Structures are given as structure tokens and as C-alpha cells.
């Protein structure tokens, strides 16, 4: 009995204590944080007022480059970058939207460029950078993806990347294969690889997002054969299911499945597994975004030079192009007290010195979108293989940079197609429905009568 009384007394005391702590907890934290930082910085304190900027980034973006720049910015301008990590994917999108709507966004944010960004209603939340000098360094192609009504809200936070097929060059050499220029050649290569006892194509549905690449990377072909598709699609005038050029992507996925070109255990194979299979030559192809290259280098540094790249081929060998993804951007919160510090950070980030620091940590996954910044000599071999596409202009943007429509269930629908649970036609139809739901819910023009 006595000990129990003591316990309740203890709990009561804990309640009081915790209420007290809860009441002043947030202030306390800030104070200690401020003390810590002022202890560290010595030289710059007098020239620049001490500033902290908060930065929200998803947990799938590698921040080594940004961290390196941030360390230098701290030295020079006494600006500390406090990084806050959020989940990626649609879950992360939702967090970003909720925090914007409730006024809880950080000073600076990392986010996709293109239609995903434009869907955030940037004019309400983000600081217009178009007056800043450093914006002039950025390529027009990128500027378009982060601009609304003449106002520019973001700067590129990395290099662009491509969506297409990574392949193992050693496997190609061993089997005497050549980089395919048409879909039929690719399928023929796959047959040969399968015969040799290797996995022709990796399907890594353990991470469902990877299921989308065969469709998304096919967009160069759609764009070149049906140039108005993106526009018509957005305006509710064209559908995947009844546009043969667009349906091809679904059919290609289905063909790979029917031909038995995928690995076994697709649903338990993760992105990580896939990178290993490709790097170690257990598999020959992996349709993926080229941001996989730094990840391969990190885990398999000796094999990175064995990895090559080609765009997803179409029917015409003369028109073999690649689909390009614009880099993610850095954006400044319009309502932040530290807008000046954020633009200061951005300016340095885009400066020559800033980019050098950045590139020392992060290699390019594709072309840079800064004027006059070329691919360095030591770029990944796979990235160098992009040069002919770029030089000859056989490059097109991914659909998500042309249209705000992207149904949330695409990954799952494509897993079903990729596993042979549904046909290409059915998959395309249910994706069209998924898109319709999105367009109506987000109230896009032409979808709600």
C-alpha cells in the first residue's frame, strides 16, 4: 500500500513537472540552440548577424552537396542551415501541402519542379526570385518549370536526370550485344540474355515507385509521334487507353512480362536489390531514373564504370531519344523572416565556388541546367552516353513537366500490369479513371462541368 501511494505521488509530481516543461519547452529549445551556435562561430559574428534558416527536404534526396555548401555559407555569412527531414512520395507531398496551408513551412524547401510544384499554388506561398541576379544563370528550360505568370520561384538544386534503361556493359560485351535502337532490338537482346541464364530486366516492385519507369521513360516516343498528347491529355481530350502512341508504354511493360524477361520474386525485390543485381551483372537491364547512379557508386564503387545508359527505344531507329527529368528545386518561403538569408544562401549555392563545392560531393546524374556549366571529365560513363542525345536534340521532357495530371495510383496499376494481373489495355483504362478522379478533385479546368 505504502509503495503504491508513493507511486501516485510521484506520478502527480511528474504531471506538474511535465506541464511546467511543456509550457516553456519550445522557448528553452530555441535558447539552447542559439547558445550552441554562438559558441561556435567566432570570426564572422561582427560582420554578419547570426541567422538560422530552416530547410525541409525529403529523406530520399542525398543532401551531401547541399551540406557542403551550407558549411561554407556558415563560415562566410554566419547562416546556419537547420535541415528537417520528411518522408518522400505522396505522403511527403501531403505533409508539404498541409504545412503550406497551415503556414508552417520552413524558410527554405526542397521540392520537385514542374507540375507538382505548380500544383502547390506557388504565388501564395513562395518568394519571387525573378528580381535576383543569380536567376539569370539558370537555363530557360528549368526556369519554365518553376515559374508562374512571369514570377520565378525556384533554383535548381541538382543536375537534371534522365529516365531510361541502365545496362551492364560487361554483360553486353560477354554476349556480344549492341545497344538497341528500337524496341524490337531490345526485346531480341533480352531473349539472348535470358538464354545465357541471366535476368534480362529487373522489376523491383518491392519499391512500387520503380514500376512506373517503363511508362514514364517512354514519353520521348509519345512526344515525338503525338506531339499534342500532353496538351490534349490535360484538357481531357485524349486518354492513354485510346491513344495508341501513349498506350504503347503499357503494352511494352506487358510484353516484357509476357516474354518472361523479368526476374522472379518481383514483389520482394527492392530498389536496393535491383542496384546490386545490375552492378554485379546478375541482371542486364534496369529501367530507372539516372539518380540511381550515385547510389550504385556509393555501394559498388568498382562497378560504376560497367554501367551504361540508353533511352527507352521506340519503333524507329532514327528517332531513338531520351526522356529528361528536370532537377528538384530550392524554394524560399515568402512569409519567412529570413528571406534575405535564404536568397543569400541561394546566391552562393549557384556561384562558381558554390557549384564547385557541390560537385565535389555530388556527381552529375545528367546535364546541368546552369548556363555554361558542362559535364565534367570524370562524369559517370552512363551520363556521358547521354551526350549524343543532347547534342542531336533527341531529348524530351517527362510528362509530369508538361501536364499537372498524375494519378496517384499509377504505381499500383503498373505493378498489376507488370505482374500480368491485368492487361495493358485494362491498366491504361484504370489509369485514365485514376487521372479523372484527380483532375476532378483538384478542380482542373475542363474536368468539372
Amino acid at each position, binding site marked *: 500500500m505504502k509503495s503504491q501511494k508513493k507511486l501516485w505521488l510521484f506520478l502527480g509530481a511528474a504531471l506538474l513537472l511535465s506541464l511546467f516543461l511543456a509550457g516553456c519547452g519550445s522557448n528553452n529549445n530555441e535558447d539552447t540552440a542559439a547558445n550552441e551556435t554562438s559558441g561556435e562561430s567566432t570570426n564572422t559574428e561582427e560582420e554578419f548577424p547570426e541567422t538560422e534558416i530552416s530547410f525541409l527536404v525529403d529523406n530520399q534526396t542525398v543532401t551531401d552537396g547541399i551540406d557542403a555548401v551550407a558549411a561554407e555559407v556558415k563560415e562566410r555569412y554566419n547562416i546556419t542551415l537547420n535541415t528537417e527531414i520528411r518522408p518522400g512520395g505522396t505522403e511527403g507531398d501531403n505533409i508539404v*501541402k498541409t504545412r503550406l496551408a497551415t503556414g508552417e513551412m520552413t524558410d527554405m524547401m526542397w521540392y520537385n519542379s514542374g507540375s507538382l510544384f505548380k*500544383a502547390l499554388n506557388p504565388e501564395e506561398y513562395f518568394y519571387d526570385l525573378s528580381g535576383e541576379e543569380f536567376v539569370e544563370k539558370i537555363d530557360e528550360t528549368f526556369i519554365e518549370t518553376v515559374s508562374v505568370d512571369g514570377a520565378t520561384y525556384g533554383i535548381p538544386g541538382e543536375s537534371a536526370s534522365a529516365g531510361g534503361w541502365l545496362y551492364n556493359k560487361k554483360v553486353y560485351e560477354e554476349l556480344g550485344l549492341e545497344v538497341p535502337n528500337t524496341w524490337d532490338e531490345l526485346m531480341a537482346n533480352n531473349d539472348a540474355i535470358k538464354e545465357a541464364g541471366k535476368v534480362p530486366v529487373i522489376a523491383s516492385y518491392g519499391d512500387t515507385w520503380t514500376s512506373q519507369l517503363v511508362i514514364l521513360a517512354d514519353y520521348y516516343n509519345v512526344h515525338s509521334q503525338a506531339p499534342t498528347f500532353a496538351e490534349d491529355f490535360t484538357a481531357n481530350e485524349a486518354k492513354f487507353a485510346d491513344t495508341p502512341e501513349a498506350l504503347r508504354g503499357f503494352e511494352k511493360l506487358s510484353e516484357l512480362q509476357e516474354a518472361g524477361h523479368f526476374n522472379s520474386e518481383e*514483389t*520482394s525485390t527492392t530498389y536496393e536489390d535491383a542496384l546490386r543485381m545490375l552492378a554485379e551483372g546478375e541482371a542486364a537491364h534496369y529501367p530507372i531514373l539516372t539518380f540511381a547512379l550515385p547510389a550504385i557508386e556509393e555501394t559498388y564503387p568498382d562497378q560504376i564504370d560497367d554501367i551504361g545508359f540508353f533511352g527507352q527505344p521506340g519503333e524507329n531507329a532514327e528517332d531513338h531519344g531520351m526522356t529528361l527529368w528536370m532537377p528538384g528545386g530550392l524554394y524560399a518561403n515568402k512569409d519567412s523572416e529570413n528571406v534575405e538569408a535564404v536568397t543569400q544562401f541561394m546566391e552562393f549555392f549557384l556561384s562558381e565556388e558554390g557549384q564547385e563545392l557541390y560537385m565535389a560531393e555530388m556527381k552529375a546524374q545528367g546535364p546541368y541546367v546552369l548556363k555554361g556549366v558542362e559535364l565534367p571529365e570524370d562524369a559517370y560513363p552512363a551520363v556521358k552516353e547521354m551526350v549524343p542525345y543532347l547534342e542531336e536534340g533527341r531529348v524530351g521532357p517527362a510528362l509530369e513537366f508538361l501536364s499537372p495530371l498524375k494519378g496517384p*495510383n499509377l504505381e499500383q496499376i503498373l505493378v*498489376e500490369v507488370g505482374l500480368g494481373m491485368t492487361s495493358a489495355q485494362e491498366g491504361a483504362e484504370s489509369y485514365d*479513371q485514376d487521372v479523372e*478522379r484527380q483532375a476532378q*478533385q483538384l478542380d482542373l479546368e475542363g474536368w468539372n462541368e
Partner: protein
Amino acid sequence: MLKVNKIYSLKLLIPAAIIYGLLFVFPTVMSFFFSFTRWNLREWTWIGFDNFKMFFDDPSLLIGFKNTFIFAFVTTILKVIFGLLFAVFLTSKIKTKDFLRSAIFFPVLVSTIAVGIAFSVLMHPSEGLINEVLAFFGISGPNWLGNPTLALYSVALVDVWKGVGIATVIFIAGMMSIPKDYYEAIQIDGGNKFDAFKNITLPLSRPATNAVIILALIGGLRTFDLVWAMTGGGPGFSSDLIASIIYKQYQAGFYGLSTAGNVILFLLVALIVFPIFKMLTRKEVDI
């Protein structure tokens, strides 16, 4: 006789009512309203029943309904069966009672996400421990989470594993409140252990059984976090539950649509649980 109102002042109800009313009832009522709108968090447009129509047009919803029923009933039945078995065993005279009870209850303490992560590793088709053990006995284990027809049941099994501890504790509590002389009486009448179980334990554990059924059913109809951590509703849509469909719509920014889904889920839970509750309590045997 004193006045009830005076002894049991409603003032005691006020703190709970304020917190619950402000942070649960009011937002819920608001969400009922928003289920009839197209809503982007800043502005809304009244669109009547369109969200409900759209929700029911979703082809994956049919799978979701079916899966939700399967998941809720499978987990409830298994929790009742195993909970009852464990409880009977743990209330008998055994030496390792405390150890066993703690071991069975232990998974309740671990976060759902951690359990989900651990089991998706253990259930890997070729490298997972479960199939390695099966392979040792010459059984080729299935692809627990990757096989579309199996995934839902695999998650349900893990849910039972994680939740059976609570069911067991409720049953133990029920059995301990059965007066000992009942058992003595049946021994005197020459009944064996099984008679005692059939004629005393089972009927008199009725209230506990009801509590387990209702809690497991409500939980099973509403939860999706374990499914989310283990399969994400996949492969494809094969292990999607209504709650995970709603969550996906919410993530996609379909706030009106997902609140409509919430209203439907609530009605569904009420429609299933309420009659079962009535039926169970009517038959309840009082001690």
C-alpha cells in the same frame, strides 16, 4: 433517497466533454460537412453527393470492401480462438505462467511500424527466416507478401501475432472472475477438465469474449497501419483496405473525397458492429 443529479454532478463530465468535443467531435462534424465539398484546405465548393458517387466508382474499392471484411473477421476469429486457448492454459496450474504471459503480451508493446519492418524481412520469400525454417523441414514456403492472393492473410497473421496479447489478457481477466466453487461443483459431479471448460469457462467467459470480439472487430475494420508498413496495399491493390484507400486519397490531396470515405467507413463500422453488439449482449449470461 438523494437526488441523483446532486450526487453525480454533470460538472465532472465537463473536462472530458470539452477536450473530446473540441478536438474530436467538432472536427468530425466539420468533416461530415466537407465530405459534400471539393476542398483544397483553403477553399471549398459544395458538390453534393459527387464525392460519394466517385468513391463508389473506384474499381479498387470493391477489393477494399472485400479485404476489409476478410481482414476484420479473420483477425477477430483468430484472436478469440488463440486468446481463449492461451488464457485457459495460462490460468491452469503451470510454473512458467508469468514468463509465457509476458512473452505473449510483449508484441503489444512494440510499435506497429517496427513490427511491420521486422516481419517484411522475416517473410521474404527466399531470404526470410520463416521460409528458411520451412525449407529446413523440406517445405517450400510461399511468397508471403508478394503473392497477391496471400498478402492480405499474411498481414492478418502478423496482426493476430501482435494483438493476441490483449485478447489473452481480457480472457484471463474474465476467467479469474469466475468463482472457484463452480469448478469444485463440477468435479464433485464427476466432470473432467473438458466438461469444466465447456460448461463453465466458455459460457462464463461470454462477457470477455464479447469484449474481445467488439474491440478486435472495430480495430480490424479501421486499422491499416500494419498493411501500410508491410505491403502498402499491394501487390497492386490486392491487400488494400478501405482505410488504406482513404489514406491514399488523403495523401493525394483529395480532401473532400477522403472525408467522404471516412464517413462511409464510419457508417460501415457502425452497421456491422452495432447489430453484433446487440446480438452478443442479449445472449450474455450473467454470473
